[in-house]
């Protein structure tokens, strides 16, 4: 495995091109005054895009990213970008954190220092982690896969090899969204290397066996009904197109920055705990850093293809099958749907379950301090 330091530097011509495209945006009409009722609102998109063009400072965002230690590694011809921030403490525990969609490694920018250097944030240096945050293959500055079949399970296998290559035999795993799926595959496929698994999302494809298992509780039934309703009413409409014909959608999003911004920000607004105003949960600078990473890396198409690759490989469990490493779950009240504990416990060994009153799907961006404290507390007895 070949590891090289990585410094992000987007060419000035790409920034100029982005600005020119934003200036030339051909906006669609909007029919009525009810904002967001048929998708991303025109006035909000104009406002956010104006900020992107006029005020957002990509070079400052780049400096934030480069303030953390970035690397690339090549594993089996797959180039992976990752943050590797060494912990400041007596015995840092390695942890690999996987992001999802529509996020990227940018989601973790405020979480990484809180885990690597707890003392700087009022914590105990004994809780320090060596933090590894890869960009998923096809996302951001990891190359797109060269062949079909790069499923979350394959990504987990790559990440296991990355951790081994970095010299870590035993580590924690953490994730939400697709990162929760990948983390679960790590815990399932290489349990001897995983000290514990901390999640802030239970994957949508998670399916325990019902054979010989207790009947569903009322809470489990209500949760299943809620998930089905969300799928029918549009929270998940992006899944339908991503999982079937992602390439068809990708051409517009890779050619139009406002098209890309609308596609990503609509999703952020829907599932962040923001009451309809995304900036109350996530700063525009962080939001646009994430959008800009998709834009400058040209990775939206390869990223959304993940939904199609993943479809044949749901997290389905055999009767009696368990995930061995212990689970800590951070249940954020503003999440799309918080599963009942008994539903999760059908497969996972639930050791810690923390309910948070505030925060949504993007816990690492919305509530980095609360999430960091929960991760530290969960792993404390496992060190």
């Amino acid at each position, binding site marked *: 495995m070949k590891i090289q330091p990585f410094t992000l530097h987007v060419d000035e011509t790409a920034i100029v091109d982005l600005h020119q495209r934003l200036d030339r945006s051909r906006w669609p*009409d909007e*029919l009525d005054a009810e904002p967001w009722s048929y998708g991303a*609102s025109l006035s909000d998109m104009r406002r956010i895009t104006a900020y992107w063009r006029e005020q957002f400072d990509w070079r400052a965002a780049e400096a934030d990213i480069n303030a953390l230690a970035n690397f690339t590694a090549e594993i089996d011809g797959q180039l992976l970008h990752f943050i590797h921030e060494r912990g400041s403490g007596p015995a840092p525990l390695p942890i690999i954190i996987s992001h999802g969609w529509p996020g990227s490694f940018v989601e973790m920018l405020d979480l990484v220092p809180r885990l690597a250097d707890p003392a700087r944030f009022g914590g105990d240096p004994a809780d320090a982690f060596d933090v590894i945050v890869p960009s998923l293959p096809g996302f951001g500055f990891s190359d797109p896969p060269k062949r079909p079949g790069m499923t979350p399970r394959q990504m987990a296998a790559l990440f296991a090899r990355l951790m081994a290559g970095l010299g870590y035999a035993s580590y924690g795993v953490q994730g939400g969204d697709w990162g929760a799926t990948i983390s679960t595959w790590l815990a399932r496929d290489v349990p001897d290397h995983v000290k514990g698994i901390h999640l802030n999302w239970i994957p949508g494809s998670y399916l325990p066996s019902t054979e010989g298992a207790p009947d569903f509780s009322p809470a489990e039934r209500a949760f299943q009904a809620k998930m089905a309703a969300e799928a029918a009413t549009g929270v998940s409409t992006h899944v339908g*197109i991503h999982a079937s014909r992602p390439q068809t959608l990708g051409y517009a999003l890779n050619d139009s920055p406002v098209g890309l911004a*609308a596609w990503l920000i609509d999703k952020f607004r829907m599932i962040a705990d923001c009451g309809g105003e995304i900036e109350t949960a996530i700063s525009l600078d962080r939001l646009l850093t994430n959008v800009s990473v998709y834009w400058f890396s040209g990775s939206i198409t390869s990223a959304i293809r993940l939904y199609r690759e993943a479809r044949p490989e749901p997290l389905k469990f055999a009767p009696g099958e368990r995930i061995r490493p212990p689970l800590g779950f951070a249940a954020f009240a503003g999440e799309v749907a918080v599963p009942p504990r008994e539903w999760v416990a059908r497969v996972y060994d639930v050791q810690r379950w923390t309910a948070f009153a505030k925060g949504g799907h993007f816990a690492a961006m919305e509530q980095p301090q609360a999430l960091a404290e929960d991760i530290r507390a969960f792993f404390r007895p496992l060190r």
Partner: protein
Amino acid sequence: MIEPFEVHIADDVLDDLKARLRRTRLAPDFANDDWEYGTNAAYLRELLAYWETGFDWRAQEREINAFAQFRTMIDDVPVHFIHERGRGPNPMPLIMTHGWPWTFWDLQKVIRPLADPASFGGDPADAFDVVVPSLPGFGFSTPLTVPNINFVRTADIWRVLMRDVLGYQKFAAQGGDFGAYVTAQIGHKYAADVFGIHVHLIGPLGMIRGNMPDDSVFAAEEKHWIATNAHFFAVEGGYSNLQGTKPQTLAYGLNDSPAGLAAWLLEKRRRWSDCGGDVETRFSKDDLLTNFTLYWATESFGTSARFYAEARRNPWSPAHDRRPVVEAPTAILLFDKDIVKLPRKWAEGYYNLQRWNVPKTGGHFVPMEEPEVLIDDLRAFFRPYR
């Protein structure tokens, strides 16, 4: 008030289109020769290059303007339409409604033969006065500025167009795709005003998938449709869920990127036509690019996609509870290679079914793919009602 209309896309719109095509940041693609991940980049690149450097929009525009076109406003909705008067002893008025991702121009091949059969080897007694509107929010029926306009409301608007604007007290109606729903709604709500209806797509007007007929209703020669229907809903239906819920989110990219718009529309042309994987066996590059340019230049993608959302948000409610639901005499021309096909036995209960014809070749875009079949079927069906 009706105004004559000619298409003239401004030079600066065409120049801007070419400049955008030149600057296209084409998404990378791989392992997608069969288009399973969606539109194939190599073919798209070839098509975009021709759009930029070879395609002659002005030539297409001249062909469109060879038809008499008009615009009017009905209930605050702009309505553009071709009106081709029939040549024969007693032309029957006929309104033909297109679908998505079609435009009015998908009817280009059938208008003259239907209006003037004698010039195309037919009988002048079969002549129609042909009216081909653009659906509200599509093509030149723009800009659409009022909400809740779906296929149900369009049927009301079409009746006003035919009776009050054009003075046809009784008329014939024909359509495919969303146009078939408009047409069936006319046959349901305004059965007394029509001689009959002719459709090449069928389904319950409530459009609820749960209303789909049970597998046992499909006859032996229809059984293979069960699997193709299921495939369509499972694999090809993503666009419909998206356009039915968040058309505006999609519109930002497609109204700003001609490459993105082309990829979105092209995939449907290839996937839904009976083209065996080679879209150009059914549509020339000029056909495809004329369609894309119409969507692009009129900036109508957003409102065209919204037609799906308005269908969901304003669910159909019956105008009466009689059976069959569609009381107007009905001809169904169902192509075996179309995307969704329901069985004859179901259609017999839902429509006042008078004619049933299932050609073996031809897909979803009937008037472009199989114009002769459509023309013959229309003439034969309406002959006894003259």
